[in-house]
């Protein structure tokens, strides 16, 4: 399955995941701490500069990941224009875009396996409550079963079309949920037969 990690190698890819996450936490904290549009502008400029060091393809990919923010940006911009509170609007928008762009930057430059390593380290204090093996197994099961369930949904949809000539629409949800329940029972049995989930 595709992750959001960018295939374009940037210098940030070589940095350790833990370091990037710690830097992101500090940066985000600072963003929510300051109220000056000037500093927030500088922060956003910094994030954009880091994106540009990865080259134009990387930066364009990053801009595409910000697209879901557009409706919010439009509403906030209109609202603050109407209220005649330009600096207040600038603070909100600069902070939001800088925070989301910086977080996306970490996601785009860190491989899934490195993220999971950090997660394992962070989850270690929880091990009496949640054994790391069990968490790892759960993550692997979800990643494996997303394509399995989507394929099942596609088959069920085709079968419905063949019978009725119409698209199934919402009628597909119950059989897909049933497929998930049945698969869960089968996988549980298979795990037990192989010595349990640990």
């Amino acid at each position: 399955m595709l992750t959001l990690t960018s295939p374009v190698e940037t210098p940030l890819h070589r940095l350790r995941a833990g370091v990037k996450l710690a830097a992101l936490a500090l940066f985000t904290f600072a963003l929510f701490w300051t109220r000056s549009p000037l500093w927030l502008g500088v922060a956003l400029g910094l994030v954009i500069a880091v994106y540009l060091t990865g080259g134009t393809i990387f930066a364009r990919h990053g801009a595409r990941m910000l697209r879901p923010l557009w409706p919010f940006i439009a509403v906030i911009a209109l609202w603050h224009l109407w209220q005649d509170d330009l600096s207040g609007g600038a603070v909100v928008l600069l902070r939001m875009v800088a925070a989301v762009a910086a977080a996306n930057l970490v996601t785009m430059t860190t491989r899934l396996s490195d993220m999971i390593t950090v997660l394992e380290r962070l989850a270690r204090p929880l091990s009496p409550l949640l054994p790391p093996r069990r968490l790892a197994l759960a993550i692997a099961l979800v990643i494996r079963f997303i394509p399995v369930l989507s394929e099942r949904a596609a088959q069920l949809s085709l079968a419905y079309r063949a019978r009725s000539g119409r698209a199934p629409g919402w009628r597909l949800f119950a059989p897909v949920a049933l497929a998930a329940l049945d698969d869960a029972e089968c996988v549980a049995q298979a795990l037990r037969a192989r010595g349990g989930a640990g």
Partner: protein
Amino acid sequence: MERSLTHIALFAALIAVLGLVPPLYLAGAVPVTAQTLGVMLCGTVLGARRGALAVLLFLLLVALGLPLLSGGRGGLGVFVGPSVGYLVGFPLAAFVAGWIMERTTLPTFWAATAGGVIGGIGVMYLCGITGMAIVLNKTLAEAAFLGLAFLPGDLIKVVLAGLVTQGIARARPGALLARA
């Protein structure tokens, strides 16, 4: 033990698969996705504890960088964006929906629908609107005005959650862990 684990994992995968369903557009602009239907189903089918854990597992995978939120969104950015409140509300909504399913003796459809309204709309909107108010620096009333655009779509999803839960109860009476 294995059964709990596999049910939690498979329903986390189900939320992701429902996020792939192309959204329905109400009034031409407001997208209605099936993803929150998956969140409600986690609660109404698996029950409070397992349902909330399934949603948490799903959010963990999103945070690790998989594009599993509807529209292919994911990564750490969504947890600082304006929709963060809704993401925080996901596991709470599943928990409340599951709790209502477990603790009431209403017929399956009505229990699941009530769970959907209180958990999937009440709790979810409370968290989501508070999150928007904080990130966008607006009052709760102003944020609520933005959030209410999604209400008609969510009412449809609540009824669907009721119907799907009832369908599961009929097809596999023992599989509805919330009522087992």
